[in-house]
């Protein structure tokens, strides 16, 4: 599969579809890391070392189930724009995007997993699922780990577990990440409280697109730190429980905002809708913030779709979000003066094709 075929193929379900319940948990990623014994870690290795690691790992990965016709590329063969596109599709990590010779990426045709050779560790596997389907991710990763563990000589110590370039991350070699849309908690200025509370529970949360001034698009990444040996089941259970509580809390705050007699939620949603519906130029930050409010408005039924089923509409918004991200990834703002106009045209066309009206109590 070539890069063009990968980009033109139907995007994977996790990238386009929303979770079953709502738009709060957008996508969950399980990250499995392993290092080969006898080789320097990628950050400390030479191009020759990395090549030797790739020569051992790539043939084994190619034999995995579902890898026939997989997309495989050495990072030095991918252009800056191609890497930006993969980053926007969440199919490449920022660390990997900066790599060159001897570093490879493999994506099977189903695009349910991403295999990176010589990222921060010799082998990094990302398994992705829409929503918060943690059990599915753990099942997929445990199958992959069981197959690979029998075929490659990974670096392990009995008391430490899988060895990683950061000693604090040695152990089970597994981390979980979930992208969350938390506009109500953001509007209610509650994110700093949430962050502090989560720290005490050994779970971390950070803004997804923070630009240093504001939390762009109210999107956050909730993540576990890698756990010690034999802790995966316990950590995953703890993580899932916290994730559910966070989703419930966001829903409760949404409800409270809806009951606000000052109509602040409706006002924010109306302003965002007006911007997306009529603006002629939109910055990426403005677009992300307005789309976040639009999502909140439709999820709380302040706004109602005229010709779309709510589930299809949530998926369509996710698709619009992806198109905006891909368009923005193709060029840098300062290098492409037409980008703000193109963004505004995209959102106007989308909302013209899928009109919305305010619910009677907010009109």
């Amino acid at each position, binding site marked *: 599969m070539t890069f063009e075929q990968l980009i033109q193929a139907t995007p994977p379900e996790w990238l386009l579809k929303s979770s079953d319940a709502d738009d709060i948990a957008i996508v969950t990623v399980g990250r499995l890391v392993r290092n080969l014994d006898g080789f320097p870690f990628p*950050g400390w290795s030479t191009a020759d070392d990395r090549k030797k690691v790739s020569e051992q790992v790539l043939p084994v990965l190619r034999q995995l189930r579902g890898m026939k016709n997989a997309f495989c590329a050495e990072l030095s063969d991918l252009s800056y724009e191609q890497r930006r596109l993969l980053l926007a599709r969440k199919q490449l990590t920022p660390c990997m*995007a900066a790599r060159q010779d001897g570093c490879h990426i493999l994506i099977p045709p189903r695009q349910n997993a991403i295999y990176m050779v010589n990222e921060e560790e010799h082998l990094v596997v990302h398994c992705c699922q829409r929503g918060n389907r943690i059990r599915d991710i753990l099942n997929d990763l445990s199958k992959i780990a069981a197959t690979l563990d029998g075929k490659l000589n990974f670096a392990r110590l009995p008391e430490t577990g899988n060895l990683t370039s950061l000693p604090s991350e040695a152990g089970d070699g597994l981390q979980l990440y979930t992208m969350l849309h938390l506009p109500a908690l953001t509007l209610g200025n509650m994110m700093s409280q949430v962050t502090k509370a989560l720290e005490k529970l050994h779970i971390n949360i950070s803004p997804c697109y923070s630009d240093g001034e504001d939390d762009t698009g109210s999107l956050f990444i909730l993540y576990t730190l890698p756990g010690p040996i034999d802790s995966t089941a316990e950590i995953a259970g703890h993580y899932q429980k916290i994730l559910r509580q966070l989703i419930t809390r966001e829903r409760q705050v949404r409800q409270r905002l809806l009951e606000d007699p000052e109509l602040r939620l409706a006002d924010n949603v109306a302003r965002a809708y007006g911007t997306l519906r009529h603006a002629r130029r939109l910055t990426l930050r403005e677009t992300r913030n307005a789309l976040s409010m639009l999502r909140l408005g439709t999820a709380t039924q302040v706004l109602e779709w005229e010709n779309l089923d709510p589930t299809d509409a949530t998926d369509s918004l996710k698709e619009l979000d992806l198109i905006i991200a891909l368009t923005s990834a193709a060029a840098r703002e300062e290098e492409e003066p037409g980008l703000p106009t193109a963004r505004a045209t995209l959102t106007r066309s989308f909302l013209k094709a899928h009109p919305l009206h305010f619910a009677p109590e907010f009109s």
Partner: protein
Amino acid sequence: MLRLQVKKCHICGKRASISLTQIINGQISELALCESCAKEKGIFDPQTLTFAEKFFPEDIKAKVDKIVRELAGMQQGEATDSAKDEQRDLLVRCPVCQFSLSTHRKTGRLGCPSCYTVFARELAQEAGVMSSDTTDSPADERTELERELQQAIEREDYETAAVLRDRIRQLNDTPHP
């Protein structure tokens, strides 16, 4: 502004594989490093800098600025650290990958799986400091930290001592229930 040129390494004098020029508040700072010194200073993969610069220009600028400012002091400090480690009979460099203990202390990372065995003593000490962070009672934790601080001072491990001192200050600043 950041641009690439070819010069001599500011640390070892060998041919530099990378040279960085940046302008901060109107002042020009220059830094030229060979590949091994760049790794030593935490710029792990000089070949990726042009790309990394596009993605994370602020991070790279901050890192280079820090290296430029601290270069002289760090060289002196490293020499002192290594001498102390040798006195303490610790292995200061992994014989398999040549990763040094001082680089581990600066970056928190290791060079290869063998480093876990080579630097086992250092890692055990760090794990000890980290596990003391989770002690239940603040009074017990303070006593334990003070004991470790005393030990660190006795063995002239001032880096660990500074971490312990800061943790004790934090505990003292925390209001008692």
